């Protein structure tokens, strides 16, 4: 089964939930700031990667754990995903979309805005991490519900698959593709062709 945690920017709450699911973060207590910062994808995703579904790892039961960003439009995200699943005749039992945005507090929003949108990482990252700590137990509850929903395996999940992450651009190596616009980040003008053909 593919489990996709999604939130606004795919940088904090969804990454934290996916990490709890995989056992990268403890489920019994709130970890310290550094524990969050050591997570490969935490506070990393850029605007030009939103929408891309990142693979994070396999849980003990063999479920594939992903996370993504839907920019505050979870309904559109879910509608498109479910429609595509319908077109390709993928059974609803094969995937689970989990909206983590409901557990995001204002501290996380402020810190996330400063760090991701404004680029003030030194100020924003500690703030968003404090917010994540405040929302942590709610995220643990959410993950417990997800695990219960998918058939309930042990909470003592271990990560079975973890790839090497670049220290300069964390997160990119685990992706199926590079972000749009190559190595450039931030706002860019996108001139779309009238005909879009997917390329690998």
């Amino acid at each position: 089964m593919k489990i996709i945690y999604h939130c606004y920017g795919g940088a904090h709450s969804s990454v934290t939930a996916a990490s709890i699911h995989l056992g990268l973060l403890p489920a019994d207590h709130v970890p310290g700031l550094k524990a969050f910062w050591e997570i490969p994808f935490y506070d990393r995703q850029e605007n030009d990667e939103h929408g891309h579904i990142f693979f994070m790892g396999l849980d003990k039961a063999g479920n594939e754990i992903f996370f993504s960003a839907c920019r505050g439009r979870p309904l559109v995200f879910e509608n498109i995903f479910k429609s595509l699943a319908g077109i390709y005749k993928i059974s609803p039992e094969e995937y689970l979309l989990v909206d983590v945005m409901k557990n995001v507090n204002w501290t996380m929003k402020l810190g996330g805005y400063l760090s991701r949108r404004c680029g003030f990482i030194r100020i924003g990252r500690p703030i968003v991490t404090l917010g994540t700590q405040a929302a942590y137990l709610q995220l643990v509850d959410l993950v417990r519900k997800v695990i219960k929903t998918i058939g309930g395996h042990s909470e003592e999940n271990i990560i079975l698959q973890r790839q090497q992450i670049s220290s300069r651009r964390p997160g990119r190596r685990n992706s199926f593709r590079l972000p749009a616009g190559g190595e450039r980040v931030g706002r860019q003008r996108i001139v779309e062709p009238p005909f879009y053909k997917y390329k690998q």
Partner: protein
Amino acid sequence: MAGSELWSLPFININNKNEGEIITLGEDGQGNKIFALSVQGDRELINRLIESFLSIFKHAPDDLHIVNIRFRDNGFLLAGRILCRAAFFAPLGRLFVLAGVKKIYGPLSRLVNDQKDGKGKLP
């Protein structure tokens, strides 16, 4: 195109709640399945989502082609959309929408014919 033909299309009556739903419209002469998707805002995000979907479920990227209908809403369409929000003005709004669609119908059908003939611009 008559008004009744336009309003019988499934896509024309879509509301905000089912934004993002992909509507199956049928098959063309070559057996290609035709779908319609209406999403406001950043289309790159949607492209990335679809591309990722195909990737994680191991479907060929060539399986799906997205044609971006780049025509912006003209004045008639905008006015029609606003008027259709109020039930009282909806009939008038529909007239505006019809006029708006008629205005872009020529270039729209040229775009569709180009795609059918394989003349669509590739990135």
